[in-house]
């Protein structure tokens, strides 16, 4: 499944400072439809190169990270249960505090 994953607000530092990743994600064994839970575990294994605790806490993202599926807050689409489809754009962004 072709997906575009983007990291911002400093999260890109966890994946070698690359913000945009065009990736091909295969369905895990025994899974018919990919959801955000599967994708998070894929990201953690395949893209996060350092300090995974800066990206995840338990089986979800750490506090202060917004997840956007096709420019829409994942809270509005079921969080970890959000279904992911071909060509979706998923953005992980850390909230900023500076000024």
């Amino acid at each position: 499944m072709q997906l575009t994953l983007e990291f911002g607000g400093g999260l890109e530092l966890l994946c070698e400072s690359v913000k945009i990743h065009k990736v091909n994600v295969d369905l895990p064994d025994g899974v018919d439809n990919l959801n955000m839970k599967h994708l998070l575990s894929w990201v953690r294994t395949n893209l996060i190169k350092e300090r995974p605790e800066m990206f995840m806490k338990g089986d979800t993202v750490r506090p202060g990270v917004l997840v956007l599926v096709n420019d829409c807050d994942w809270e509005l689409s079921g969080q970890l249960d959000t279904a992911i489809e071909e060509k979706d754009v998923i953005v992980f962004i850390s909230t900023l505090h500076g000024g």
Partner: protein
Amino acid sequence: MEANGGDSSEIVRELEALKLRKSEIEHRISTLEAKLQETTAAVEPCDAVSNGYSSPSSPAIEHGLEHGLSPDQIYRYSRQLLLPSFGVEAQSSLLKSSVLVIGAGGLGSPALLYLAACGVGRLGIIDHDVVELNNMHRQIIHTEAFIGHPKVKSAAAACRSVNSTIKIDEHVEALRTSNALEILSQYDIIVDATDNPPSRYMISDCCVLLGKPLVSGAALGMEGQLTVYNHNGGPCYRCLFPTPPPTTACQRCSDSGVLGVVPGVIGCLQALETIKLASMVGEPLSERMLLFDALSARVRVVKIRGRSAQCVVCGDNSSFKKQQFKNFDYEDFTQFPLTAGPLNLLPTESRISSKEFKEILQKKERHVLLDVRPSHHYKIVSLPDSLNIPLANLEARINELTSAVKEKEDGHVNTGSFTNPSLYVVCRRGNDSQIAVQYLRESGFDSAKDIIGGLEAWATDVNPSFPTY
């Protein structure tokens, strides 16, 4: 030479004094002008004639000006009145509105200038900081003459010089749970232009309690974020971020850097959202967030969640009232101290002062100096003969340190002495160096010591001409 040096320092001193007097006089002029404007406007609306405008003196009502704008105001704001989507009604609402900008820094600078210029009726500024030279690249409201003076005084003077006809409130103090309710309650719209998590939670909670819309902006490095909270049933800051992020994820501009124009862009957009709310024009950025990436020149506006029924502050069953707010410890909640003291991880025998290190250099004692700052910091300035291995890479690059120590040993083997060279560790302020020494001692570098206070202490106590940043 000696005499010349004395002369120039005297000239610099006199220049400083003159600049300060000049800014004070300018401030006084704009205050008096504002006062004059107020008194004449009260007596005879048309008497206060500004540049390029002249009119027969007659009260506004004779022109049938039911919107209440004086001829002066019509002229000053004419380009906004000419906008069909804005017009005289929006301008009239704007002139009746009051806005509080919290923070006169990188975001607050452009926000304040535009809000003053466009004719917000009353503009409050709150900040406890003074203007510093390393603010000037982004905090464009301040001028060099105000370095060392309160940011609020500087910002207020600049706003008055742009528009002497609006009212400006100066709050030279830190916003705290003890004064926030009282100060915020005096304004219609609140602008969060602060730079830290505890302030952001405190301001949002206070806005919920008072029912005020909050225009929130943030910027760091090359990125910015903007949204409007607590507006028309929309979410508050806590609906989005119920749990504060880990402290390690909260970077400060003073540590991570920021390109000046990035908070500038976000601050301008904060002024825009504020103007829209105050004049009741357009669609506010509520339940949406604007994400700005300067490097790739991309702006994306995303849809975010609405108000959460479970929110502990604005939710349906919230028991968060003014009394809870006053007693709430935001620094503890976010684990983000606003006045960060230095770490103290090591026993005294594992540390030396910068003055002691100077003596070691003078005595030419054999040693290795390890600088654990990030490499882009090291490129700005460093002590001579130092080895740079950033703290984050120390474990992976420990071989380089081992061979640097060995080299010093070998160099001395020829003279017949076999004592180990000492190992000193330095960073910017003396925190990371302690973490590094802790790690190094556990890894067999028994002589490792950190230089207390880092390069900042070196600049203060040993070499005042050593650059700080």
